[in-house]
């Protein structure tokens, strides 16, 4: 249908590769510059280690980093899944029941004034050092965007869809499962992406404040030992983990909702034309 407008596939692949080339070149340029700055100024490794020192630390401390990455990833994933498990049903209740909405939604919105990271010490007092508090912090931070976006998604439907379904004699639960929820999924995935990024922050903060393993813990210990190369090496691991986990959500969305992106693009193309 739109073959002509989209151009030949080979050309698209070339363009896409060129698009990736630019940020890659910038990134490599920045690393080289960093190395040069360290060499030329002779800045001390306690302040800024050279990229080569970071790479060296990554290889020498590979075992420690890999060993500590596992609990961190686990805390992020469990925190995220917990946030979805609590956030989505809560959003459905808010969207379905005006009484529930009036009683809880304003409080929920107000509660966002509490800086959740600052709750970390309290959670540690309540639940001790270990796995549970960092999961709870990840969950606490991640669940809010899930609720907000799911509620927005459930409400984003043209009321005539509901009129149509009611004229078909559909029950309330059918309207929810076959119409409102599928329609809300693109919004929900937008929330999931933000939530995953926040769950990562939550888990790391939890580990920095009170844990005896995990990359956040490694970060604190390395910092205490003035081992800046290890701090940077840990950061590299965290960046990679973060990219993989948020990428996983993106991939899941593409597999589950192939229609979402395409309908949106078509809609956009129509408005531009």
């Amino acid at each position, binding site marked *: 249908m739109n073959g002509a407008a989209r151009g030949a596939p080979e050309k698209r692949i070339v363009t896409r590769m060129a698009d990736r080339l630019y940020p890659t070149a910038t990134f490599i340029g920045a690393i080289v510059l960093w190395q040069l700055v360290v060499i030329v100024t002779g800045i001390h490794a306690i302040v800024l280690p050279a990229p080569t020192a970071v790479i060296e630390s990554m290889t020498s401390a590979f075992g420690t980093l890999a060993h500590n990455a596992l609990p961190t990833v686990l805390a992020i994933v469990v925190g995220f899944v917990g946030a979805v498990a609590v956030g989505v049903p809560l959003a459905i209740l808010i969207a379905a029941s005006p009484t529930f909405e009036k009683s809880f939604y304003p409080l929920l919105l107000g509660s966002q004034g509490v800086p959740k990271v600052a709750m970390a010490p309290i959670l540690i007092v309540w639940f001790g050092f270990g796995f549970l508090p960092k999961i709870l912090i990840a969950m606490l931070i991640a669940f809010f965007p899930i609720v907000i976006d799911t509620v927005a998604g459930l409400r984003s439907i043209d009321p005539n869809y509901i*009129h149509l379904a009611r*004229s078909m004699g559909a029950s309330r639960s059918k309207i929810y499962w076959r119409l409102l929820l599928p329609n809300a999924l693109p919004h929900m995935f937008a929330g999931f992406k933000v939530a995953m990024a926040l769950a990562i922050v939550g888990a790391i903060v939890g580990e920095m404040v009170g844990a005896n393993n995990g990359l956040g813990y490694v970060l604190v210990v390395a910092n205490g030992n003035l081992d800046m190369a290890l701090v940077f090496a840990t950061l590299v691991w965290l960046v990679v983990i973060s990219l993989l986990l948020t990428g996983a959500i993106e991939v899941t969305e593409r597999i589950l909702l192939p229609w979402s992106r395409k309908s949106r693009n078509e809609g956009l193309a129509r408005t531009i034309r």
Partner: protein
Amino acid sequence: MIEISNVNKSFPTKDGTVVALDNVELDIGKGDFVSIVGPSGCGKSTLMMCVAGLAQPSAGRITIENQQVTGPVTDVGIVFQDALLLDWRNVLDNVLFQIEMRGLPKADYRDRALALLKRVGLASFENKYPWELSGGMRQRVALCRALVHDPPLLLMDEPFGALDTLTRDQMNIDLLNLCEGGNKTVLFITHSISEAIFLSDRVIVMSQRPGRVVEDIRISFDEERKLDIRSIPRFVEYEKRIYHTFRKLGVLSG
């Protein structure tokens, strides 16, 4: 089949009460194709929503087959101006959405759905998704969805209002074909005078707000209804009569 008696509808707004429908009286016989024309905001869509049981009149009553309408009418097919297709379902599953919502066995209606799609020129499109269709094609799918369970009553609220003229002409012909001999009662809301005359057995003219029925015109032609019919003297006479009414109401000047 449908009796609308003394129906009033008013909405509270912050600037006071707005009267959308003012003592509407209308009887629609079984198998009639009735169009309602009127200026924007005259309450014609509100009237349709009341007939569908999706809105309640403030006063008066509506009965369908002697049953007073108190909640959503389900023995009906509805088409709105927007096709309202589900992006996550292909064409066939969009048509069968009607069957699924009713809890009917989908397998029994598959052939009928495919036959309907074929009649509106969408054979072999059953596996396409809404984003792959043009506006006219989407509305054809919506039309098939409204007819797949073979309802006795079809309610249409400016269904072709967003389509270009050529597509609209084709949709008018398709609609007549689909309704032919099927004994369907159709209530068709439009602001196109020629579309109303072309399709209908009766055209109801409504005034601007508060909406009242000001004219009720029976339409009949000796000729078969093809697009050419729009230039024969009789058709033009009907058009003149309705334009005259709108001028008298002050909806049109000149």
